[in-house]
């Protein structure tokens, strides 16, 4: 029997419970008698409001004349408490003199949100206490003596998400957001009792954020799940104008083109990333002389009407919104035809049996019933090899399995988060679009914290219009890099989730304070040259240049130090370079633009023969003659380009199969179909330390052995697990992802027309050839004098480095006396990582890890942040960004 290793045990205890061990050391004697702790007080602060005590009179905190007169109500605790802070003393006001220390007021329920009714001298707090959901009234009449009192509680029949006080027909009303019920419930604030009479406005969606805009007599409503905000007339409860989209057009929950169809159910939507609901030119409308989709092209000139060729017998033309029953199954288009993943799907026949899908599945020139195997009674065009084990059935996609997977009450395509039938989750990526809102003091601009996108968006209140960043550096709405525009960034993008907003004043102009988690507090200044052209930017400590962090070469999981530092440069995503600057410093960087608006924070990774993100799939159908069809794929969006490799697994037991993993270059790319070059198929030679020298250009430019592509019958039911890989270097980013991803329309990828889009693929120079023959065999592209004349730059892709040689077998020359990369045990495992910081450094104030509420006012020089993590109230000076005090 082995005995315990005492030192190891001690180490583990220290590692596992460092705080406890430290506490033991402090406690000395160790054992004390205690009861279970009650972690109450302000820990878990989750609701707050500002009030003002001006000459003994309770007034609005937002309009308090000076900081010194401000009080803050902060709700939190484990069992529900409300604290009263004098933030500029700073201290808490003790609510129970009988208890030692500073005691908050117990409100018997977790506070969710609170609103102050100045007229009624009360705070109304939404709480959750077990199965009880309540509105708790707090009497503030004794506030001049810094005391509060709980008066009445009213039960709610739903989980409240937010509360607000609105002026309605001359009186103050309490509004409560009910996200599960899609409603706003209102009751007079005056005389609030335990049995209030409620008025309900059913508006649908999932109301979760309320913002009263008293100057306009409006109540703005944000939703937990729907991508728009809605202004309501505070008196009538009717919409006071159009809802404002805060999402892309095909996921905003609105009927953007007025055809009665919304988002994914509108034939004009190619998917959730489509920003335009306008309908495509339909096949049935292709001879009416009308530009039905408003894209500027009519009938035959419209791509929607263009007859796309069949590729090797496989239909790539759009068939899921043409108004025709293409596969003759009695069902037409998406969503009626189960063979259509979405409106952009190329074919209705994805669900058809192999002998009725209109496809020459085995590439023998005969399709469906004309094929001998189908005529012989088989359900497919080939005879499956008995030696091939059936692949386990792939799970039915969550958006096509008849189950309400996320429990939100909607199933499959009825769930707004299901963009297409093949989506594998009913949960959308951009949920929680509007859980916090704030208006500027002049009520001209409204800020919305979109937590799913990690953006703060701005709305022109009068025009009911989202201020979308425009392209180019001259736009008054700054932070509009081309990358942001292409990726549909709709506002100010942050690394963390924006958790709270407040209207404040900076330098005499309206501003919005923004809290992010993780991160801190930043101030967005709104100071355009005139009212019509707002300028929105973050206050920054510097606005000069972007920086690139020191790049690190990762080889087999270990970092290889390159021994250089990176100068501060402007950043964009041009080709990588290593260059010597005027002062002799080596710069590892990228082709730069002087446009300061081309920056954004991002981390990038460069890998050799990298797997395309999303390029590992198990739902392919391997059709003969080099056609790979994957009904659930969008190869344009994945970013496949001609020249990429399709990797198929070894099929050693199958006649005609391959004993080794085989790869073939892609010839053509369609939305869900790839055409590969069967003649160029080779063994998929994995680059390892042992064989990397075989890649020596001069000796063996193609060490891989040619192999035939396996026939379809080598895969059970034709289903194949496959990979998509770049042939050379692949650049992927943490936010942008694969740069060569492209939109598709009607199953055809948009052309690769931008150098930015091509930046994902990089190569080393190629050996110069004449009539297909290498003229001078040289292994390594670079010499001490630069590029060897035997090489030419690849015209389609850009060189990775101008001096460093990433090619195996090449000794890298020293640059500036410093040895360059020395170790490349496996090129496929080598990766560069570095990060790009934006073109300026936002001024960030540290306010804790979990800010849940911000409090500010038009006349206040400071802004208050409630941190749920520490249970602290942090006071920040707006002008300097410094933390003035912290009230724990």
């Amino acid at each position, binding site marked *: 029997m082995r005995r315990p290793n005492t030192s190891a045990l001690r180490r583990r205890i220290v590692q596992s419970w460092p705080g406890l061990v430290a506490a033991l050391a402090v406690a000395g004697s160790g054992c004390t008698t205690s009861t279970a702790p009650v972690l109450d007080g302000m820990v878990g602060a989750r609701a707050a409001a500002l009030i003002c005590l001006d000459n003994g009179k309770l007034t609005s905190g937002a309009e308090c004349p000076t900081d010194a007169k401000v009080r803050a109500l902060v709700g939190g605790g484990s069992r529900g408490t409300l604290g009263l802070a004098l933030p500029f003393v700073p201290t808490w006001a003790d609510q129970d003199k009988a208890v030692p220390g500073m005691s908050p007021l117990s409100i018997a329920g977790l506070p969710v949100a609170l609103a102050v009714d100045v007229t009624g001298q009360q705070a109304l707090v939404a709480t*959750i206490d077990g199965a009880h959901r309540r509105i708790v009234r707090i009497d503030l009449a004794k506030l001049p003596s810094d005391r509060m009192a709980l008066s009445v509680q009213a039960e709610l029949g739903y989980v409240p998400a937010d509360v607000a006080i609105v002026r309605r027909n001359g009186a103050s009303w309490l509004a409560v957001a009910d996200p599960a019920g899609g409603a706003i419930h209102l009751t007079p604030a005056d005389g609030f009792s335990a049995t209030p009479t409620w008025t309900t406005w059913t508006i649908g969606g999932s109301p979760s954020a309320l913002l009263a805009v008293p100057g306009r007599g409006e109540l703005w409503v944000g939703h937990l799940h729907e991508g728009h905000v809605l202004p309501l007339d505070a008196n009538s409860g009717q919409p006071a104008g159009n809802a404002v989209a805060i999402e892309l057009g095909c996921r905003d929950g609105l009927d953007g083109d007025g055809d009665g169809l919304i988002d994914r159910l509108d034939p004009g939507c190619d998917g959730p990333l489509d920003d335009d609901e306008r309908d495509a030119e339909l096949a049935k409308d292709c001879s009416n002389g009308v530009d039905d989709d408003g894209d500027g092209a009519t009938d035959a000139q419209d791509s929607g009407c263009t007859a796309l060729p069949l590729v090797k017998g496989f239909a790539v033309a759009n068939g899921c919104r043409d108004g025709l029953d293409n596969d003759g199954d009695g069902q037409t288009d998406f969503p009626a035809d189960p063979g259509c993943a979405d409106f952009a799907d190329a074919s209705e026949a994805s669900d058809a049996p192999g002998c009725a899908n209109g496809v020459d599945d085995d590439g023998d020139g005969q399709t469906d019933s004309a094929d001998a195997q189908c005529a012989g009674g088989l359900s497919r065009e080939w005879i499956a090899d008995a030696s091939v084990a059936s692949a386990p059935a792939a799970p039915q996609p969550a958006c096509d399995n008849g189950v309400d997977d996320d429990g939100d009450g909607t199933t499959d395509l009825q769930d707004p988060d299901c963009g297409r039938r093949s989506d594998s989750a009913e949960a959308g990526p951009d949920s929680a679009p509007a859980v916090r809102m704030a208006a500027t003091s002049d009520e001209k601009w409204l800020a919305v914290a979109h*937590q799913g996108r990690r953006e703060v968006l701005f709305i022109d209140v009068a025009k009911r219009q989202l201020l979308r960043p425009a392209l180019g550096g001259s736009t008054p709405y700054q932070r509009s890099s081309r990358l942001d525009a292409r990726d549909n960034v709709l506002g100010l993008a942050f690394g963390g989730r924006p958790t709270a907003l407040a209207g404040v004043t900076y330098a005499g102009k309206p501003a919005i304070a923004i809290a992010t988690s993780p991160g801190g507090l930043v101030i967005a200044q709104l100071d355009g040259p005139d009212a019509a052209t707002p300028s929105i930017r973050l206050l920054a400590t510097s606005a000069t240049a972007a920086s690139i962090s020191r790049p690190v070469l990762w080889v087999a999981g270990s970092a290889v130090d390159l021994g250089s530092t990176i100068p501060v440069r402007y950043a964009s995503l041009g080709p990588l370079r290593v260059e010597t600057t005027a002062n002799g410093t080596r710069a590892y960087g990228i082709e730069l633009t002087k446009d300061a608006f081309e920056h954004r924070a991002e981390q990038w990774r460069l890998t050799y023969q990298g797997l395309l993100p999303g390029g590992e799939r198990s739902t392919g159908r391997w059709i003969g003659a080099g056609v790979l069809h994957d009904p659930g794929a969008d190869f344009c969006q994945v970013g496949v380009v001609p020249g990429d490799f399709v990797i198929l697994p070894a099929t050693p037991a199958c006649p005609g199969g391959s004993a080794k993993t085989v790869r073939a270059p892609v010839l053509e790319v369609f939305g869900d179909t790839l055409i590969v070059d069967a003649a160029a198929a080779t063994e998929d030679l994995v680059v390892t330390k042992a064989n990397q020298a075989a890649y020596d250009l001069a000796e063996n430019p193609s060490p891989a052995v040619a192999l035939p592509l396996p026939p379809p019958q080598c895969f059970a039911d034709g289903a194949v697990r496959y990979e998509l890989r770049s042939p050379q270097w692949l650049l992927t980013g943490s936010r942008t992802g694969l740069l060569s991803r492209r939109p598709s329309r009607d199953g055809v990828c948009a052309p690769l027309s931008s150098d930015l889009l091509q930046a994902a693929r990089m190569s080393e120079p190629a050996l110069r050839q004449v009539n297909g023959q290498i003229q001078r065999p040289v292994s390594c592209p670079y010499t001490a004098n630069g590029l060897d004349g035997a090489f030419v730059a690849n015209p389609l892709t850009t060189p990775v480095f101008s001096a460093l040689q990433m090619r195996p077998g090449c000794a890298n020359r020293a640059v500036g006396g410093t040895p360059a990369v020395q170790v490349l045990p496996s090129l496929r495992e080598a990766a560069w990582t570095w990060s790009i910081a934006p073109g300026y450094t936002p001024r960030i104030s540290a306010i804790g890890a979990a800010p849940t509420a911000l409090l500010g006012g038009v006349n206040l020089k400071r802004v208050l942040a409630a941190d749920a993590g520490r249970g602290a109230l942090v006071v920040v000076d707006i002008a300097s960004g410094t933390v003035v005090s912290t009230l724990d």
Partner: protein
Amino acid sequence: MTTARRLWRNAGPGPAGYSALLRFATFCLLSTGLAACGQQEGLPADSGRGVRYPIALTASPDGQRVYVVGANFDRKFRAGSVGTIDTGSQAWVGKVVETEGFAGGAALQLSSAAQALRLLVTSREHDGLAVMDIDPASPAKLSCGGIDADGRCADSHHYGSAIGSVTVGNDPMGIEVLPWDQQGWRVHVAAAGDGKVSVIKLSADGKLTSVGSTGFGTGLSHIRTVPRTGRTYISDNRAPQLHVFRLDPEVGTASGWKVVPEASVSLPSSSLQDYGRGMALSADGARLYLADRSPASLVIIDVAPDSAGVPRNAVTGVIPLIGKPSEVAVAASGEKGKELVYVSCFGDDSVWVVDPWLRSVVDVIRLPHAPYGLAAVKVPGLDGQTPATWTLYAGLFARHAVAVVPLSPGHAKRHQLSALLESE
């Protein structure tokens, strides 16, 4: 101070004595003030015959049993005790078995019929695994080879650095078992001491074979794989991030597989330096729920694949909690089967209930004595006709007991303590 005397008597002088003192002191502190060093109720740090300090619970798929792992830090006192609760009778059944060394996480290996075949328990003290066979005819009966008079498993059912070819890292905390192929299962073990994550193949005959490993930060806690994307996530109580890896087929390696680390998921951070703990997956596998200690919160991570098939790995919600969130369980126990998330808050004597759709706390279940390990179980009706009901089993760390909490809507004691199953 009976406990103290016993400790000193058994530990003796020297390093072993120091270790025992440290263990004992840690014991006291672990209970967060509830320990009271044997003087208060709920922490009789004596041997007993039952499960001591329950930290990990795992339920059989048929909902009929809950296996409870205790993690007494002193092997004298049933260091890794494992017991079984019958959910029908709501009682401990069978004999408590003890692994070598104090235990960490536990996971069940399931047959294709979703029956439990084996229970795997990490041994933090010995950097290994205890593999216990479950008798299909008598599922409460755990066997692990020869069992000595103290109920300890024999060495032959212990796998670790000292025995066989399987190695796990230093101080293994997290473990999971998932189906792999027709030949077996995959076992993932995350070690806190050296940050090693081990991938092990478990064949049908119970044989363990190392597949590969990789390293992350020191503080690994729990491990969960998302079947849809094949990505495995590891929480780290020392860093505000989730580590991620995938397993790729690889020619040229002994196992034919390669563990490939991917970019980690950043989490909210604070200066408290105590971060990720338990994790659970949503029913649709699209969201990962993480109990985070600083800031105390339930973090919702979107792990569904995007349109390009890449896991989104985005934090979509941080719901503030209180009091050392520890473990997470998921149940379709809301109205109309809506999914709710349960988080044990060790330092607050409570289990917080979160509606992930509303991103809101909707209830707080008050339980005594530091709830830690959780299992949300769909318990079948007794007569086969009454509908199954969701029930939460919560290990009460300081009471050597398991709390039973009905979860189903309409139950008279929903979200309240309905029974306390004391271990002997």
